């Protein structure tokens, strides 16, 4: 059976009792799932509509106004803790001329919101923010025109405010009185009557986030907190090695445990459902202890990971090649950088609730893409997409493609086994650590020629697996790989430029007369991987910005001055200059204390998004090798800043998360399985590693396009730390992470 054949098959969920032997049919179809973002899509209209309006052009797909005046704004994007809800409400409130609290925002739900693909790639402000900005401005103009007709006045004479349109003669009419079912059911136009930026009342202000009060008072804020009537709990027993196959289970023993409702087995997919959550955990443990498995994956020897990856076939592609004849002389440098597998490591393990009723399947999920997930679940279950509703609810922090989609599939498989009962599945900590898709291990080899203190030639080769195995297809869901009739994983694919995947940000923003950048895409995946915040940008910027410091040192130049000498982009120069000024680079760089170092890092995310420059002061303890970040100062330009404190929060968080990756993180494994099964074996940053001071300076650009923020700090922070460590210790370390054993060994004390 191929992934594109269309006949139906029946597969069986072997459940715990005769009564619970449940079948579900599976239709396999080619899926033309629309994923409007992160792909270089051809515009379908002669003049492209702004943001996601190009995919959902009707104004009432975004904004609905009831006769009561109640305003609902819809977004296909999801709140991930990044504060997007607040920013989108601010945009709509500003352009509609209403107070923020007058707006109800509905986020990603396949029953009610536009399909905006994934909430990923720092695209939410560009896609959804831009769509809502323009839709709201156009809605306001439509309302003003409708009022003008009622008042028999020119639209230009009317003013809006507080949800009303007012005439100079004192007459006023509420938005709710003006709307009819058809009024906003019109296609948007390319140009919008946006409010002048000088008249902004809501945008550009750090209003408090709408999602925080419920989170700090114990409200039901997460899918983890969803409690439906008659809800039951499921846990999946994962194999000891990803490639192991289930041989036998002692079902009878597990069935006798209190509260157990079903043992569900389908091929090597094994799970238990119980009335209460802890009963389920205990049953899962017994089931795991008594299950026997055959076979295992053959993982690389961990000490030879990079050699193993380099020995795999790669598909090579020059993403930039500009050759000029170089004059003789000068100096050449080469350096190779490594990044291990790293994990998302959300503090709350992934969770979902699913309910199968009659012809409907409802899934509450913290997936980043409710529509793509629905497509994958449709293929998995054989249900039509129209029978499935995926509703986004917040999860624990999301930093890319984690276990959210996989656990939704787990809940669905169990909900089908127990129709009529909502089934909640939360992964255990070891499930999350061992089975989430990791950020790929990568290798970057850089070389350059220096002539007269300037870079004359540059080359960059980057080796990586794919950076997206996101669903769209059933085979992208973990448990689908273990069914009796498993779904094939999607063929690994490189993400195209200009966004890129492994080659994201592999092209430097610097002026380079002669340059070659080659993406070496490795299809074969020793470990399951996918998108981790920043994708290849984290590694490429770490490598490029480390190498810039190596070149600056070779040229005898100050690192900041060396960057500016090669940077023409005016906004890039602004963040570099601002970060250096706020850090006091010139004043303090010459007076560094022994054991302390300064480091700098810069990038424009994807060369399309936000600009970020970061300066770090770090102390390296020579005896232990421990790196302590003393202070970190960032300057960021995300275009028009809708909520400056929201941007600061995201950048601060990105800096600390990147510091954690850079100093501590490496997924460990032996020849058959991942051994990083908890925080003990995968340490991350703790409060004792918190810098004394973190500053983020936002350069606001009113009226400029939104550039997104979420991933901008990851690469620059990594490089700034590595450069500070090199500056402090005199030793350049090119392998991540810079944990104390590695630093100590490099220093050679």
């Amino acid at each position, binding site marked *: 059976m191929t992934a594109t054949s269309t006949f139906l098959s029946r597969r069986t969920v072997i459940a715990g009792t005769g009564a619970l032997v449940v079948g579900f049919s599976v239709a396999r179809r080619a899926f033309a799932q629309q994923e409007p973002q992160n792909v270089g899509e051809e515009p379908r209209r002669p003049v492209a509509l702004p943001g996601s309006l190009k995919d959902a052009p009707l104004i009432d797909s975004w904004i609905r106004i009831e006769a009561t005046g109640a305003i609902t704004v819809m977004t296909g994007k999801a709140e*991930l*803790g*990044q*504060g997007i809800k607040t920013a989108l409400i601010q945009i709509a409130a500003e352009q509609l001329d209403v107070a923020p609290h007058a707006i109800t925002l509905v986020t990603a739900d396949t029953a009610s919101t536009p399909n905006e693909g994934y909430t990923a790639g720092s695209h939410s402000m560009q896609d959804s923010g831009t769509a809502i900005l323009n839709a709201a401005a156009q809605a306001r103009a439509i309302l003003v025109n409708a009022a003008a007709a009622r008042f028999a006045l020119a639209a230009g004479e009317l003013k809006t405010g507080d949800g009303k349109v007012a005439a100079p003669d004192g007459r006023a009419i509420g938005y709710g009185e003006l709307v009819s079912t058809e009024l906003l059911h019109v296609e948007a136009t390319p140009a919008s009557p946006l409010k002048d930026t000088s008249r902004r009342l809501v945008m550009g202000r*750090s209003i*408090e*986030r709408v999602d*925080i*009060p*419920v*989170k*700090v*008072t*114990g*409200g*039901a*804020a*997460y899918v*983890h*907190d969803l*409690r439906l009537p008659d809800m039951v709990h499921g846990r999946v027993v994962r194999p000891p090695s990803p490639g192991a196959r289930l041989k036998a289970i002692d079902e009878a023993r597990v069935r006798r445990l209190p509260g157990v409702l079903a043992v569900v087995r389908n091929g090597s997919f094994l799970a238990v459902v119980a009335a*209460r*959550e*802890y*009963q389920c*955990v205990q049953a899962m443990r017994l089931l795991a202890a008594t299950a026997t498995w055959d076979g295992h994956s053959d993982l690389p020897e961990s000490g030879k990971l990079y050699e193993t990856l380099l020995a795999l076939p790669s598909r090579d592609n020059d993403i930039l090649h500009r050759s000029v004849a170089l004059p003789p002389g000068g100096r050449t440098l080469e350096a190779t950088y490594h990044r291990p597998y790293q994990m998302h*490591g*959300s*503090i*709350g*393990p992934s969770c979902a609730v699913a309910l199968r009723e009659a012809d409907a399947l409802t899934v509450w999920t913290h997936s980043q893409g409710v529509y793509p997930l629905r497509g994958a679940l449709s293929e998995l279950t054989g249900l039509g997409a129209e029978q499935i509703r995926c509703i986004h609810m917040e*999860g*624990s*922090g*999301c*930093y890319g493609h984690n276990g959210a989609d996989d656990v939704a599939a787990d809940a669905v498989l169990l909900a089908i086994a127990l129709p009529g009962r909502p089934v909640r599945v*939360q992964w*255990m*900590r070891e499930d999350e650590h061992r089975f989430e898709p990791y950020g790929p291990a990568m290798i970057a080899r850089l070389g350059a020629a220096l002539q007269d203190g300037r870079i004359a030639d540059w080359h960059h080769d980057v080796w990586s697996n794919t950076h997206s195995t996101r669903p769209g297809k059933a085979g992208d869901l973990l448990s689908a790989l273990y069914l009796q009739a498993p779904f094939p994983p999607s063929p690994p694919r490189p993400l195209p430029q200009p966004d890129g995947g492994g080659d994201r940000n592999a092209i430097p923003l610097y002026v380079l007369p002669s340059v070659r950048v080659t993406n070496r895409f490795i299809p074969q995946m020793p470990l399951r991987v996918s998108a981790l915040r920043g994708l290849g940008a984290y590694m490429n910027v770490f490598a490029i910005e480390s190498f810039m410091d190596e070149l600056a040192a070779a040229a005898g130049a100050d690192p900041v001055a060396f960057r500016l000498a090669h940077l023409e982009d005016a906004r890039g120069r602004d963040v570099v200059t601002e970060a250096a000024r706020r850090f006091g680079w010139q004043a303090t760089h010459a007076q560094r204390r022994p054991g302390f170092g300064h480091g700098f890092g810069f990038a424009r995310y994807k060369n399309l998004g936000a600009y970020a420059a970061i300066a770090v002061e770090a102390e390296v303890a020579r005896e232990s090798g421990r790196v302590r970040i003393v202070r970190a100062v960032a300057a960021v330009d995300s275009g028009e800043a809708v909520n400056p*404190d929201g941007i600061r*929060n*995201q950048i*601060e*968080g*990105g800096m*600390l*998360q990147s*510091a*954690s990756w850079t100093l501590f993180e490496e997924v460990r494994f032996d020849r058959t399985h991942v051994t990083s099964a*908890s*925080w*003990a074996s995968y340490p*991350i*940053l*703790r*409060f*004792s590693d*918190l*810098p004394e001071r*973190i500053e983020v300076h936002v350069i606001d650009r009113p009226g400029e396009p939104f550039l997104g923020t979420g991933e901008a700090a990851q690469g620059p922070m990594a490089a700034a730390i590595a450069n500070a460590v090199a500056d402090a210790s005199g030793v350049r370390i090119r392998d991540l992470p810079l944990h104390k054993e590695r630093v100590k060994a490099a220093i050679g004390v």
Partner: protein
Amino acid sequence: MITLTVNGNDHTVDVDPATPLLYVLREDLALHGAKFGCGLGQCGSCTVMVDGRAVFSCLLPAAAAAGRQVKTVEGLGTIDEPGPMQQAFMAEQAAQCGYCIPGMMMRAQALLEAKPAATEADIRAALEPHLCRCGTQARIVRAVMRAAQAMRLVDAVGRRAEASP
């Protein structure tokens, strides 16, 4: 049957006494504040106060909490009338996803009740058992310092009120 006193109210629940307190709080008492993070005492997101001390509710058997005063983040105030710790976290916007935050708040509350004059260094040291993956630590420290100040003020006003006839 186990009787638990949570946020000042008694609850009698019919659970296996070995069930960790966390599951009873969430499933039987519908208190969402304490979160499952690791089940191993490594991350702190399940932290609640028991007799004034911060404990990992994912490790403490429910039976061991019987007869003791359990306090969760819901006991610090409500969304309409947030307490000083909650107000401080809102004022500092000290959350991203927020999943780890209630546990942090309970650890901080226990610290400040025991040591009202806690310094920034004390706060950082006290929060060491807690993980935040979003990287909100700097704001969390600021929020706890703000809460400490607010609680000292409330305390001082209370003492003055008691002292006056």
